[in-house]
């Protein structure tokens, strides 16, 4: 049994290590800035391969004192010629707590990493409250990335709700 626990722990480490250290550091910093002076434990929810939202998708539980405080999603969306990585923190009721862009690689469209723009998603719970151009104002000159991020957040939100309905989370 102990061995199994050890394996599980190593498993978590292994999966987290998929992300470049720079991105991980940034992610941890953001999490720590929300739960100041608390020890936040990240626990990946393992999804079977065909159930996972996309190849670049990760879903974690965030625990403080072993109590679930939020869900953390790492996802990837497309800019004009490249992909960017970003994270969403969901409250337990699956409303969005915060979104941050972790790595943006292209020269155009980087405006979407702007905090004030991303704030528009906060507290939203359903994909239909995130209509691009209506609920979420676009950014001139960064339309492709803004639209792409919005679509991905909508997709992930729907997906999490489905998981919740099925009792998987």
């Amino acid at each position, binding site marked *: 049994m102990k061995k199994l626990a050890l394996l599980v722990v190593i498993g978590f480490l292994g999966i987290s290590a998929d992300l*470049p250290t*720079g*991105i991980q550091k940034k992610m941890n910093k953001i999490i720590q800035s929300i739960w100041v002076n608390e020890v936040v434990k990240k626990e990946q929810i393992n999804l*079977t391969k*065909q*159930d*996972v*939202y*996309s*190849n670049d998708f990760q879903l974690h539980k965030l625990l403080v004192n072993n109590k679930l405080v939020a869900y953390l999603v790492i996802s990837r*969306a*497309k800019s*004009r*010629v*490249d*992909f960017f990585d970003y994270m969403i923190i969901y409250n337990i009721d699956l409303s969005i707590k915060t979104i941050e*862009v*972790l*790595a*943006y*690689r*292209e*020269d155009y469209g*980087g*405006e979407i*990493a*702007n*905090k*004030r*723009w991303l*704030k*528009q998603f906060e507290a939203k719970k359903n*994909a239909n409250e995130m209509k691009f*151009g*209506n609920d979420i*104002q*676009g*950014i*001139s*000159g*960064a*339309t*492709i990335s803004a*639209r*792409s991020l919005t*679509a*991905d957040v*909508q*997709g992930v939100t*729907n*997906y999490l709700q*489905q*998981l919740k309905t*099925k009792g*998987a989370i």
Partner: protein
Amino acid sequence: MKKILVILILIVTVKLTLAQVKKADTLTNAPMNAAQKIVEDNESNKVTIGAYAQIDYNQQFNDSSQSNGNLDVHRMVLFVGYKFNNRTHFVSEMEMEHHVELELEQAFLNYQLLQNNQYLNFRAGLMVIPMGIINEYHEPLTFNGVERPMVDTKIVPTTWRELGAGFLGNMNKLSLRYQLYIVNGFQSYNNDDGGILNGSLGYKKGRQEVGENTISSPGISSKIDFYGVPGLKLGISGYYGKTQSTLYDNLLNSDVDGKATADSSILLIGAVGLDARYNYKNFEARGELLYFTNSNSFQYNKFTQNDIGEVMIGYYAELGYNVLGFVKNTEEKLIVFGRYEFYDTNFKMSGGLIKNDLYAVNLLTMGLTYKVSTGAAFKADYQLMRNQLSTNSFTKQFNLGIGIWF
């Protein structure tokens, strides 16, 4: 054995139910995304292919004369991007204009100097000059009207592109995007055509073909955009540089007269552009102001017998409203818009040269943009144009067109 069977069946059932959960969402397959991914597998994600095209029908009306309509595959541009690694990508745009000329619009290499960080990129190659709105974002789905605003044609000769190199990046904490490049400049004189910048076409003929550019002195191009308020983008652009002339070729240092002649064949261009774009729900607005100075214009005009202004200006303001905004579950947009423009390539003349009022133009455009998808639109508009020489009569033009972008 039975137990194993039951367990197997259980596993299969669970798997099936979970499979239904998986990514049933179609939103991620929105046209803009799906079209950009040519092939789904990871290897091919390195290549991006795209295109934009504009096909127009223009019909002029005059009170005194008849005009034929004009049908035109105005431009068809192929976009090819290649991602070498997470920090390096190449972007190219090849344009077929009026179906005859084949031209490169962009071809540059972009390198992210700090990994996973947008602060600092290095770019080199053939790139568009960030001046105003349209020159940098010239795809037909990004603007209303069949044709690009005249200000962005007559004052900024869209697509104005130059060979050069420089830095760009986003400072998201400050909500700022910056660009700073050293670039080649317009050609103002060549041995075949003489002086090629004038009041009628502005800088248009001075855009150098991509091959074998002349360069004697580089210019500086920069732009700063502020995007700290959702829906709003404000930009300030600057350009400073001398034009290029073939008369400097093989010029002996001792040839004082030759140098004086060559010096009369160039302009020193200083330009400032201000632009604003604002979207709020179904409402959109944008405006632009361009101010170009051509130092040495008196000498240049005297030498070349041309008539370019010492100062050229242009501005426009546009309002639009999406009347389909209240229809739920549609990505279609029907934008009703109006735009007022003014430009003058002879705004100020130097050395007592007489201003030609023909080059001072007021233009009103009213029309519809029907975006049936984020990447495809039908457009129709009606234009009233008048220069300051014609006292009462407007030139009227009706335009129909399609624009696509993927």
